[in-house]
């Protein structure tokens, strides 16, 4: 069996799988946004039918979202199986072959997690399911990046190792903050309590909302919920305020990093351009977050907020990986002592002054 690190069709398939995963996150987001997570009480069957043969005439109301989600998830699972097998058979880099195996394990675990959420009726499993979905999307996107010719060519820019090293940690740190924000968002959504705070930029008319028992009782009394949302609690109000503060921190961090990348690496560098795209995405995400509140959590707006959040995480992961790659490629003396994590082609030795 001949293996290579340059498999164009494998790379294209990885990109396709990443795109399908993004669609799955979208469809999955619609399930929670429409409160349809329990619309199909059984799993892996659908109202007793084999899920692939559930009659289309019965795809009514919330069943449409939940059942579609299961079908798309099955498709992504199949794509991941193919990707993992293809990587194992054709990819030269051992660590990347194992990354495919990890992706396969993750997607299987994700499927079981989703099923258990339904059969065990546990909202907390929904939070893990949502968080793992984001991480899986990042993993598949990374595999797509690693199988690309661009990555293989190792087009390292001439920059000081110190600049690149600093950037990779900064990108990783802010991406970690985005991951925290996504998990917090998932926890908020799976409270199934609707909007904990119905206004923005104020919170119940104040910069910091009253969270005592009486005030919360009045908030619940004043709500005219149309769907079966849970009553809001002080804890949920606290989560929402933390989410707003974290959003602000992410926005200024990404804006600052985009500026740093541009200053240190020049406006034409890949990292600087991608950082700018990252900033645009985060700005869009902030607007969507506000729109989610102003539209009283309209399902489509809230779902778009989830999807853009997933993209924000993936871009952050890409930036951290690319910055790490640049750091290693520009530091042959460092790569001599560090483990060969990325199997990069060695950059030519720098000319000393």
């Amino acid at each position, binding site marked *: 069996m001949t293996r290579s690190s340059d498999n164009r069709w494998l790379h294209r398939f990885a990109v396709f799988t990443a795109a399908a995963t993004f669609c799955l996150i979208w469809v999955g987001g619609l399930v929670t946004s429409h409160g349809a997570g329990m619309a199909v*009480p059984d799993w892996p069957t659908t109202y007793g039918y084999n899920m692939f043969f559930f009659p289309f005439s019965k795809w009514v109301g919330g*069943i449409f979202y939940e059942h579609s989600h299961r079908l798309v998830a099955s498709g992504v699972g199949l794509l991941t199986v193919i990707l993992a097998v293809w990587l194992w058979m054709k990819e030269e880099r051992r660590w990347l072959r194992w990354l495919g195996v990890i992706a396969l394990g993750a997607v299987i675990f994700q499927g079981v997690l989703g099923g258990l959420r339904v059969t065990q009726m546990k909202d907390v499993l929904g939070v893990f399911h949502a968080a793992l979905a984001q991480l899986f999307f990042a993993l598949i996107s990374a595999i797509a990046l690693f199988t690309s010719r661009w990555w293989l060519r190792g087009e390292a820019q001439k920059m000081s190792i110190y600049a690149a090293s600093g950037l990779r940690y900064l990108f990783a740190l802010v991406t970690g903050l985005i991951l925290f924000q996504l998990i917090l968002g998932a926890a908020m959504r799976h409270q199934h309590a609707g909007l904990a705070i119905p206004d923005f930029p104020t919170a119940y008319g104040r910069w910091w909302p009253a969270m005592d028992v009486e005030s919360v009782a009045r908030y619940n009394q*004043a709500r005219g919920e149309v769907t079966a949302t849970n009553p809001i609690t002080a804890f949920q109000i606290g989560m929402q305020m933390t989410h707003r503060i974290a959003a602000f921190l992410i926005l200024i961090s990404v804006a600052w990093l985009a500026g740093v990348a541009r200053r240190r690496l020049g406006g034409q560098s890949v990292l600087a351009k991608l950082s700018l795209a990252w900033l645009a995405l985060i700005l869009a995400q902030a607007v969507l977050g506000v729109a989610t509140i102003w539209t009283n959590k309209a399902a489509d707006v809230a779902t778009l907020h989830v999807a853009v959040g997933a993209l924000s995480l993936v871009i952050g992961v890409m930036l951290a990986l690319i910055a790490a790659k640049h750091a290693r490629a520009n530091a042959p003396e460092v790569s001599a002592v560090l483990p060969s994590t990325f199997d990069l082609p060695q950059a030519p030795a720098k000319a000393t002054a």
Partner: protein
Amino acid sequence: MKYCLPYLTVAALAGSLHLASAGEITGKITLKGTPKPEVDIPLTPSCGKINPNKVTTRHYVVGKDNGLANVFVYLKDAKAAPPAGEAQMLDQVGCMYEPYILGVVTGQKFKVKNSDPELHNVHATPKINKEFNFGQPLKDQINEKSFDQAEVLVRVKCDVHAWMFAYIGVVDHPYFAVTDKDGNFKIAGVPDGKYTVVAYHLKTHGANPGLSQAVDLKGTAKQDFTVEIPAAP
């Protein structure tokens, strides 16, 4: 037969004595303040065909003389007793649960019926009792369920049609009622004694936590309540 007659007479006397000591508590619950208007519910196309009427939320159903409907009224400290009367039924009609508020005794089997030619799921989300979720894909399908522990109120919802939800009050005895469209209630068959009558309105119970009154029942008693809508936050 002549030997049975004395026993039958004693039994009849005992029964009538019991009935004589069983009273009733009546009352009216009125709403003070102006609630937010109910929100129109946009039904799905399939439900719109079944139910062409205008459908709204039911947070504050106010009738004659500000009478407040859908208040669950029960005796807080009555002794445990078996249910009286037929099994209660929670029905799905026109893609809405009827009634909106239902009362059952712990352990009492109640029926859940799907009167619609539309698939529904019935998902109870109690905090103390065991959660359940099952599908009712067929018209006129009836399932029986029960709750083992007292809990006021347990929400039941349909996840297929997100606007469908109702509540079940579970208590250890049959001394409860749900106010009618004009806010009136009657709890019958209550043995004489001292009780605390609790009026639980879903939307306002948080802001009106002390909505209960002590009653010393000797035959009949009347207990009215006023539910007040607090000022907007």
